[in-house]
């Protein structure tokens, strides 16, 4: 692999008072045991926009994403330092309740992971646990979220069938419906299309474009065309650092950093 100067960076500072920031990180470091995987990443994410995190395997983009809603907490030996600011609070501190925070910062994973429950229960289960018992509200949520996720027409007659019988693309859209049922502010998506076929991927992208009217979306993707098609901003990750962060249009047409240019043009590695 070609080596690049990791000090050579261009990070656009979005937090300039001109726009609304939904989430920002300040000097995030993530380490597993003695190995540091993320070496200080500071990015700000604009509200109601889609931000794509791109980079090669092992660049740390997924690890960074997973630290945003503290999913790394559950992996023994993982340590995350730095600030993650959400609504003026540092969610990476003990004063913020991690479970409450995850209701506002939802996540969809690479592998579709519906619960071994019915489609209906997949969406309503967490809501019920969080205290929502009204049947009409739950019914309503199931319908609206499935519609938003583009799955309603296909499953509206099978709501009480097992979700495990769904195809990969359907299951992933169910997971999106399940995540937005929590009415989050921010949706984190960790390569949501990685295991989907091209048609499912296209449907998923349409869904995301519609969702950004209501949610701030941060998506990790391997697929540069995908990042180019759907995202407003793009961050390029390399070996645990964010080397370039800018409007997607600029990243793909006039990158400021050599590494980014090599990656987006396919001359990487």
């Amino acid at each position: 692999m070609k080596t690049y100067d990791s000090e050579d960076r261009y990070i656009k500072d979005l937090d300039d008072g001109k726009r609304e920031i939904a989430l920002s990180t300040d000097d995030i470091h993530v380490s597993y045991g003695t190995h540091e995987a993320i070496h200080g990443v500071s990015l700000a994410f604009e509200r109601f926009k889609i931000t794509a995190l791109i980079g090669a395997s092992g660049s740390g983009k997924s690890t960074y994403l997973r630290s945003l809603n503290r999913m790394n907490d559950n992996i023994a030996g993982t340590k995350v330092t730095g600030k993650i600011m959400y609504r003026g609070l540092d969610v990476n501190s003990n004063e913020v309740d991690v479970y409450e925070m995850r209701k506002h910062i939802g996540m969809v994973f690479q592998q579709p992971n519906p619960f071994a429950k019915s489609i209906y229960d997949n969406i309503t289960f967490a809501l019920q646990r969080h205290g929502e018992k009204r049947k009409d509200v739950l019914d309503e949520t199931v319908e609206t979220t499935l519609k938003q996720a583009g799955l309603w027409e296909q499953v509206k007659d099978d709501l009480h069938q097992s979700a495990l019988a769904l195809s990969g693309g359907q299951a992933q859209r169910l997971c999106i419906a399940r995540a937005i049922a929590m009415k989050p502010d921010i949706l984190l998506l960790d390569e949501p299309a990685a295991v989907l076929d091209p048609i499912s991927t296209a449907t998923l992208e349409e869904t995301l474009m519609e969702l950004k009217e209501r949610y701030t979306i941060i998506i990790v993707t391997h697929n540069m065309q995908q990042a180019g098609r759907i995202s407003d901003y793009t961050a390029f990750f390399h070996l645990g650092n964010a080397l370039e962060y800018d409007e997607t249009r600029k990243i793909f047409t006039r990158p400021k950093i050599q590494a980014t240019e090599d990656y987006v043009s396919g001359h990487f590695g």
Partner: protein
Amino acid sequence: MNNDEIRANLLKRSRASRNERFGKLISGACITIIIAVVVSIFYFVASKGLATFFEDKVNLWKFLTGTIWNPSAKDAQGNPQVGALPMIVGSFSVTFLAAIIATPFAIGAAVFMTEISPRLGKKVLQPVIELLVGIPSVVYGFIGLSVVVPFVRHTFGGSGFGILSGTFVLFVMILPTVTSMTVDALKSVPRAYREASLALGATRWQTIYKVVLRASTSGIITAVVFGMSRAFGEALAVQMVIGNAMLLPQNLISPASTLTSVLTMGMGNSVMGSLSNNALWSLALLLLIMPLIFNILIRWIGKKGAMR
């Protein structure tokens, strides 16, 4: 919800976080109870079993090698007669003999199930073995009493009660355990080994004998030791057919006894705290320690196997 409300909620301890604390507490309590049980088994059995040596001043060596078990009487020198050797010999005899007979059968059945006919193995032999495991030990004892003992009596003479009958009963009892563990050991041999051997022109039996069995030796030994541990601790089935004579066994068809059989027969007939009672607890302590030794042996074999 407005911003202030959301902030306030984020700073409160949520329902989920209280729930998490509750769950940790409950599951932690459950595991603590189990650990407490294990510790107290060792504590109580050891404190009773060691009393023979510390309070009644019985010599440990004499206990292990003495051949006369008559705790209520004293010998000519005034020493208590608590020689456990007859039972120790009895226990080890039935254990080893049962393992010696069971091993070839277990290996044979396991090879059949993994190498010769996996289909028949899965459809027929597997359920048969699971059912054999499920039969309660008193039922084995009863069949031993009504089938094996008369058979031994007619074939070999004597009363029919004794180590031989105990061996036959234990053989059937440990066979399923040893077989299924051997199956696991054989299954863990990579398929490539077999293919390589067959490709070199070896017959199926040569492949099994020279490759598969060699590669899984430590797993097979582990299975056998595990079966021995089972056999050593089995109480009622053995007690019903062994004859319960506390004599050093002279041959395989004379009545004998094992640690477990003496315990099941004797514990109800002695007074707590008396020497004869304490001596029984010493036998129980032996019975408690043996699985540990078998356990250590299994691990040691496992490590050896892994190193190769």
